[in-house]
């Protein structure tokens, strides 16, 4: 670990201004990812600004849904019955994440911002454009079994690793951000960015920006949602492929569908073309199989991750069946 200064942020404003002033400062919340990055020397900030003292951990009911403070621990959200009833995909995604110990520490905001598990990003002995811009991508022709088949560029094919963001994306969640120029709200879909030719920039956040909350509106489809995750082992493992699916139904017909997938793409990924293929269709197992077959359209697998295309189709089909059965 490289030595760094530590500052417990007394309030939101000073945390933002401090981080805006120093390009070598980083935030720490639950620390479950940051500590790994520090220990493995993937990140070497000069200053760590601890956000844990900020009053951002409440889960509140709002006029149209729920607002989850960015410092709410994953375990806190898991045990919230309102979330479980209104947004089952969120609870399921959290339960499928990490381990109970980590969920006790990890914050919702930090979870959204966790860095990729690409083997090369985490191995400082190897070139990686995301870790060290311009050094090259070792995964393109290397050990890329875990990497993305969707959304990659010639610079980077690192998969977005999280589960929670996939569920939130399917439920059209919004992210509240506080920054140098005040507060703003963006759709979750606009938080993460594609690697393109700047893979070291994971998100659209600007220096000093802090996620303060995530909000989700209650809806028919949110109540009828699920999250399904396939991984190499049954617990404490990142997704090879995951899907969050939500359906709103009208007399046995699908009115709207929402499908987001994880483990396969460079950012949380919506399958809008599959959603459209479900709109206004009769609920039918055969329909699920046919539309799920479109799930990997446009995939660009590399040497070792071609299996993810087929896996993705099956995960989407199974998730659709799971939600379909509950209607």
């Amino acid at each position: 670990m490289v030595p760094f200064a530590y500052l417990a942020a007394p309030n939101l404003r000073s945390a933002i201004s401090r981080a805006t002033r120093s390009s070598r400062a980083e935030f720490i919340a639950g620390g479950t990812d940051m500590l790994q990055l520090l220990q493995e020397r993937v990140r070497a900030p000069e200053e760590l600004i601890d956000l844990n003292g900020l009053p951002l951990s409440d889960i509140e009911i709002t006029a149209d849904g729920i607002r989850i403070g960015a410092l709410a621990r994953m375990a806190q959200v898991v045990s919230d019955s309102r979330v479980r009833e209104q947004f089952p995909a969120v609870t399921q995604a959290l339960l499928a994440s990490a381990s109970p110990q980590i969920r006790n520490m990890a914050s919702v905001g930090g979870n959204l911002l966790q860095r990729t598990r690409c083997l090369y990003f985490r191995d400082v002995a190897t070139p990686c454009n995301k870790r060290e811009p311009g050094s090259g991508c070792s995964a393109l022709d290397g050990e890329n079994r875990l990497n993305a088949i969707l959304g990659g560029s010639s610079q980077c094919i690192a998969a977005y690793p999280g589960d929670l963001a996939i569920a939130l994306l399917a439920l059209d969640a919004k992210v509240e951000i506080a920054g140098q120029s005040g507060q703003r709200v963006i759709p979750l879909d606009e938080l993460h960015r594609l690697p393109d030719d700047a893979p070291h920039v994971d998100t659209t956040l600007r220096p000093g920006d802090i996620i303060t909350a995530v909000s989700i509106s209650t809806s028919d489809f949110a109540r009828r949602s699920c999250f399904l995750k396939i991984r190499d082992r049954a617990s404490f493992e990142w997704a090879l492929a995951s899907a969050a699916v939500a359906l709103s139904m009208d007399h046995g017909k699908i009115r709207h569908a929402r499908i987001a997938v994880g483990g396969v793409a460079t950012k949380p990924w919506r399958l809008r073309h599959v959603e459209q293929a479900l709109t206004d269709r009769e609920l039918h197992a055969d329909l699920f199989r046919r539309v799920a077959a479109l799930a990997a359209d446009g995939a660009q697998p590399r040497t070792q991750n071609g299996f993810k295309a087929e896996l993705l189709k099956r995960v989407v089909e199974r998730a659709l069946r799971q939600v379909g059965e509950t209607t």
Partner: protein
Amino acid sequence: MSGVIGQPVSRVDGRAKVTGSATYAGEFHLSNFAYAALVLSTVPRGTIAKIETAEAEHAPGVRAVITHLNAPRLAYLPLAERPAVDPKSGEQLRVFQSPEILFSGQPIGVVVADTLEEAQYAATRVRVRYETSDAKTQFDVGRGRAPSDATATSGRPGETSRGDADRALAQAPVTVEAIYSHAREYHNAMEAHGTIAEWHGSHLTLYDKTQWVDNDRKEIAHVFGIPEKNIRVISPYVGGAFGSALRTWPHVTVAAIAAREVGRPVKLELSRRELYTAIGYRPHTEQRVALGAEHDGKLNALIQESNAETSAYEEYSEETLYPAQIAYSCANVRTRYRFVDMNINTPCPMRAPGVSTGMLALEGAMDELAEALQMDPVELRLRNYAERDEDENLPWSSKELRACYRIGAERFGWGRRPAKPRSLQKDGQFIGYGIATALFPSMLSPACASATIFADGTAVVRTAASDMGPGTYTSMTQVAADTLGLPLDRICFELGDSEMPEAPVHGGSMTMASVGNGVRAACEAARAKVLARISHEMGSWWVARSEK
């Protein structure tokens, strides 16, 4: 005889382990500790052209930066006879003795500092420039080569043969042939390896994670060229090993070098990442198996060939082809063992080393043969049942495999299984029934122990054995209690210290049979002494009394 042997008693070390009071090697605390962090090579082959240590040396808290440029030249005396746990050919990695790089992750320097964090940070400030050369990092069986003489004469020959397997295969009415690839497997025990080294003048104490304290002492004595009696190795608990702690790994030497250099006790604990190259692993193998049989299933030909990776500096061989020679009755058997040299660290034993790997390929092929014959796979194995060891042409000391097949088949409902693969499903998942035979040699080795009986009715039993998890503490306490006729809680059993009576390696599944006999013999001897003393004193008392 209290009959406590074989009883399901609680682990005598259970409370210490679950409450954290059991002290593992890296958990000993000595005053005035310094901490070590390794610098590892980042290229698989070449030489160190330049190594810059100035920045590391000036980093806060740093006491020493040791590389091949300033490390002491060590003796590395050859052992008169290599222990069973070391490869028989090649030379162990000599730490910091030359600029040569043989694998990526090779220790090329160590930083010693007042705190672990300072040592780790400074280690990142050591800058290395390499002159690289072509490395062998692909497992290519085309490069396979025969074992050297030293390996072959130690019982791991390149070829074995009985009958004429190739001719029998050519003539067999039913044949199968397949390639079986087995990926490398890493140990990753819960307790990471680590060593604490402390010098008192010319005497060295090592707290080390090891399955064999006696051999640790011997190896380090030869590395440093000092008498074995000057070294003490302490290893009371081992948090999982399965073969990873059989050998004395290079980091043990590094800890001892570092401690001598700074004149303080040094703790060197390996990180998870470092474990991949600091200790061994089960090697990658690719095996070819060809079987020839009559229509009735009788095996006529068995050919098994194994290609296994080894390092560029040692020839690590395994018993991969042992099952082929004894598992089934077959007149014509041929085996071949080849090494694929790689720029990697040397592999090491892991959980039934070689035997399980060889069995995997052989049993896979037996299933293929059953399929080709349209025969029940259990029936095929029974039809080729080896009534004696056909390789040594000796009767088995005992063999209950037939009963295993029968009882296993009954309990699994083998008779009701659908013969056609992929015909059984439950909850959207396929259910399969399968069978495989497993075997492992039963080994024994001499072992010593001491037993002391105290006047208060307690006893202390000691041996330099190890307990990596199978329950040596408990089973030896049971043997002692049974032999001495004392309750379990009156026995204090201690292990894991080279000052204790010599014990064999804690591996090969032989500790109970070997050390158990040693403990029993020691307890019998102690008991006899006590009884003799009692009868003598009772006799004197009786004589004195009758003379009155």
